[in-house]
């Protein structure tokens, strides 16, 4: 597990400007230092331009680790990872082309920033050092607030908003630099069912209308399955399926009747059998 991505023999057939294949992963393994077992094992993964994918899997299955690797926060122990054709830690100016919304906000809820301030943060990288935010950027921020139904909260302190409103503000922030890839890490945790449905609808529209490639980590398969085109299940290894293959009416019915755990367990049993058979 000491082979780094640079001298790994696995290669990716990346071509063009990298935008055609926003994410390409081959042979990715990752183990935290001193961990007895790897968190991620031999993952092959690819996300094409315009795709809308749900990444599901049990807690501790490696979803957040996988995202941290895509964002360049962790280095793979083995394998190759390319985002827009580049190693994540060397994305440089292409960072602005990734919109990211985390599951849990890491900010102090009493921080003196308004919703508009937070959304404008999304344009800081593009604006560059020493420059002020342009009027056009402010106009765009207000349009995004309108789109996500938080236009009247422009001057409200971010920490005073409900969790759902905060998440909408963070998505608007992520959309400020017109990203080509949106990574959402369990964005609906803590939002009620009706709110979730509305939220996913808005996300789906971003994919359909603006063509943004979206990867959404979620536990709410019942809600998300109606919108996404592909579903991947991550539990150490990645199991990739088209929606029709994995989420048929029967499965959806099971999920809708709150048998998500049973469904996941069944799915994981298949995965373990698959590994035991040595395929």
């Amino acid at each position, binding site marked *: 597990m000491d082979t780094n991505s640079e001298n790994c023999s696995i290669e990716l057939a990346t071509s063009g400007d990298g935008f055609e294949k926003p994410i390409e992963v081959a042979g990715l393994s990752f183990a935290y230092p001193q961990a007895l077992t790897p968190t991620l094992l031999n993952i092959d993964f690819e996300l094409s331009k315009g795709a809308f994918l749900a990444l599901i899997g049990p807690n501790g299955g490696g979803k957040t680790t996988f995202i941290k690797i895509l964002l360049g*926060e962790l280095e793979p122990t083995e394998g190759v990872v390319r985002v827009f054709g580049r190693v994540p830690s060397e994305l440089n100016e292409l*960072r602005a082309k990734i919109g990211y919304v985390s599951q849990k906000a890491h900010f102090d809820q009493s921080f*003196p920033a308004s919703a508009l301030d937070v959304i404008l943060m999304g344009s800081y*990288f593009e604006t560059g050092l020493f420059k002020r935010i342009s009027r056009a950027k402010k106009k765009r921020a207000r349009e995004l607030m309108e789109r996500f139904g938080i236009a009247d909260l422009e001057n409200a302190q971010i920490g005073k908003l409900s969790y759902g409103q905060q998440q909408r503000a963070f998505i608007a922030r992520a959309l400020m630099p017109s990203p080509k890839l949106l990574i959402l890490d369990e964005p609906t945790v803590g939002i009620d069912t009706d709110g979730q449905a509305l939220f996913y609808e808005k996300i789906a529209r971003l994919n359909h209308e603006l063509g943004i490639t979206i990867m959404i980590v979620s536990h709410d398969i019942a809600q998300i399955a109606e919108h996404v085109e592909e579903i991947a299940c991550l539990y150490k290894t990645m199991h990739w399926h088209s929606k029709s293959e994995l989420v048929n009416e029967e499965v959806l019915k099971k999920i809708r009747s709150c048998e998500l755990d049973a469904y996941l367990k069944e799915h994981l049993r298949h995965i373990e059998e698959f590994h035991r058979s040595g395929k």
Partner: protein
Amino acid sequence: MTSQISFLESLQTFEFMRNAFLAGIIVGVTCSILSVYVVVKRLAFIGQGISHSAFGGVALALFLFQDSVGADLKVNIVTLIFCLLVAALIGWASRGRRISEDSAIGIFFAVSMAAGVIFIAMRHRYTGEVFSYLFGDILGVSSVDIASITILAVLVLGVIIAFFKEIFFFCFDERLATISGLPTRFLHYLLLILLAFTIVISIKVVGIILVSAFLVIPGATAKLLSASFKKMLVIATALGTTSSLIGLYASYHLDIPSGATIVLVQFAMLALAMLYKRLRA
């Protein structure tokens, strides 16, 4: 009214009073602005660590240049270098998770003070001026001090203006700022360097022991009064400057130490702000 005139007359008559007045304003403004960042980024303990470490720098400078010409400037320069070094070491040790941040601060702060005590002991002469660095001596601020604190204050404020939005984002959510492509490692060290500069500016006015109050109270008071970052900066600056002037005026008339008086005035303002917030709630 008579006493007010005598205060104003003293400003016209004595250079040391003019220097004290100017130093109070410059330090009041610079510390207040930094205090907003200290409060929102929760750097109060780092501020205290760097300021106490400054004792090592002051003692080293007094040991090296005890009888030399231009000792004021040399003390400022050596203290600045010492504080920058300690700030960098705290930043380096805590950022790489080598040791926890509070442990790093506790260690460097104590080691610097221990080194300072040794340097002072090695001087073999009267060490009375050390007290002016420990507790501040605004009336002892020289023209050279005024020149050096003005240059450092302009540098600090210039850097804050230049990196305003980046530091704002960094303070809000460091992880998100990193993912968004901002140079957060650089911003982390930049904030520590700004803190070190500001502490060096303030030592002669308020003293090593009390400077951490200047770096917290105006920001904490402003946070009680506003939920807007920019308004917090304005409020903190107004409070910091006003408290410096009131403190200086009061200490002049009551013949009590000015640094400590300013801190007590700042605390009174904080208490009033808390009362105001409670009454409004």
